[in-house]
């Protein structure tokens, strides 16, 4: 491209600290960005039951196809992995950040910071990350919570699954039909069908 690198266009305007404060809501794994506030699992439970349980279930078990928020320990290598904050999420900051910005679903950014700390603490508590139901989770310590699956992630090591040569003829591959979508019949086709295996 032939654009002059670094050119200044004198467009836009400086953002004020106050403006930034209203929108800059992200929290990093080390707690950077966490707003001042605090809450305990006990406080969180009450809020959870009124504001969250209708979708995620009283025990975090997930109603219908809404996300499961509890359990899943030791399932990741199984045929039915259950990914929850307890079993899967590497950082507690992510839980605070996400509830704060996106929950309750359809009423985003209506919770106070203290409420979000309490809800985060509650979800960490039912997932055995915190063992004290009076633990005070706050901006001071959210970057220090150790999550069970913290070491469960490896960097992308693709490309993978590459053949040694690109076979063009008489290739040695299985060509027997071992599965048929038509028999499973989960495809929406207007004449009714059972539910299939979802992504969650």
């Amino acid at each position, binding site marked *: *491209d032939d*654009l002059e*690198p670094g050119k*200044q266009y004198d*467009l*836009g305007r*400086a*953002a004020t600290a106050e*403006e*930034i404060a209203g*929108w*800059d*809501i*992200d*929290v*990093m*794994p080390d707690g950077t960005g966490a707003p001042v506030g605090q809450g305990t699992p006990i406080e969180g439970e009450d809020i959870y039951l009124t504001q969250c349980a209708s*979708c995620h279930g009283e025990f975090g078990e997930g109603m219908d*196809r809404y996300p499961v928020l509890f359990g899943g320990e030791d399932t*990741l290598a199984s045929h039915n*992995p259950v*990914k929850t904050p307890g079993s899967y*999420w590497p950082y507690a*900051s*992510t839980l605070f950040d*996400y509830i704060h*910005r*996106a929950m309750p*679903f*359809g009423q985003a950014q209506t919770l106070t910071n203290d409420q979000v700390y309490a809800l985060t603490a509650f979800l960490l508590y039912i997932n055995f990350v915190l063992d004290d139901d009076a633990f005070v989770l706050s901006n001071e310590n959210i970057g220090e919570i150790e999550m069970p699956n913290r070491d469960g*992630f*490896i*960097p*992308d090591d*693709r*490309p*993978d*699954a*590459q053949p040694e040569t*690109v076979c*063009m*003829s*008489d*290739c040695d*591959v*299985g*060509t*027997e*039909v*071992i*599965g*048929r*979508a*038509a028999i*499973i019949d989960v*495809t*929406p086709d207007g004449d009714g069908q059972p539910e*299939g*295996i979802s*992504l969650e």
Partner: protein
Amino acid sequence: LGKSGPAAAAAEADPAHLPPNVPWWTQYLGDGVAARPYGLPSPHEAHVVRRNVEWLTATTESSVNFTPIQDLHGFVTPNGVCFERHHGGTTEVNPVDYRLMINGLVDTPKIFSMEDIFRFPVESRFYFLECAANTGMEWRGAQLNGVQFTHGMIHCVQYTGVPLRVILDQVGVKPNGTWLLAEGGDSSGMHRSVPLEKALDDAMLAFAMNGEMLRPENGYPLRLVLPGWEGNMWVKWIRRIEVGDQPWHTREETSKYTDLLANGKARFFTWEMDAKSVITGPCPEKPVLHKGVNQIKGLAWSGRGRIKEVHVSTDGGRNWMQARLPDPVLPKCLTCFNAEFEWNGEEVLLQSRAVDETGYVQPTMQALQEVRGVNSIYHNNSIQTWLVNKTGEVENVRLG
């Protein structure tokens, strides 16, 4: 799924409209030029629509629908049928009220209006956008019997917008700024970490697709474009970019969009879309209607650059032939392929295999499963098999 396209074409013609007769439309006037200021497809194309799968998700607001690739031609996806993936529904933004904030490790945090954005230099480029979960329902076996559902989380349009590096130049990234956070203005506050390197390479902030302003469901009035990378990162209705010195590990890049392997470990930051292809006709929605000559048509793409070759097999991958790749073949853009195919009424197993300019070869499902198991959800770019039976019907099958 209604065999709408070909089935409709197979319907009986009205002899009054065929030669030597002169049909009514050759005699009488149609609608004038004031009838449709903004036009729509023919009523005979009413089957060419996005479709969703109800049982996939709890709500339609946090859900996906699928591009009807079986009914499309060429590599441009019409805006009206570009698949949608939302986490809080289609956000409705009035461009007058729109603002983009850039803060963090920058010399001067700034706020831009759409009027500001339009005063920057622009570029216009064709890119595919594929959801990392495209074909994700097929890891364990052939499940959905339609290419719209197995491969329809993809579209390809011409984006017009401002190179992201130009915008970043306006705020002055500090030397320790190495990562960006891109954050949406939707009610999910969709946010993803992006390495600065990609932002300075080919990323753009796009306001238009296929010539007109972005559609609301695709991020109106401004979205992030990350060519070749998974769709979830192309933050829509983008409201803020923060420069940081570490990634954020947001919910979408930890709880979601990490790829669980058989041993319980998960890959993270799996950004690039591997080379992939699929035959979009014949396919379950488009049976083979005639013996004799037929065309195999399909789409291929790679997040790493240009498609170099596409191979097609009619015997389940034992023997392959080169498909035609009609011009133009553009990098990180859908690429059409065609191959002739004589059908004599026997059962046929159709497959396609893409090779990109880096030499990457689209793998079989077995090869993928050997490395990744079946719990990965994302990045299923395996070779797809369609079984054409003796009546010409086509089914999604798994071979072994």
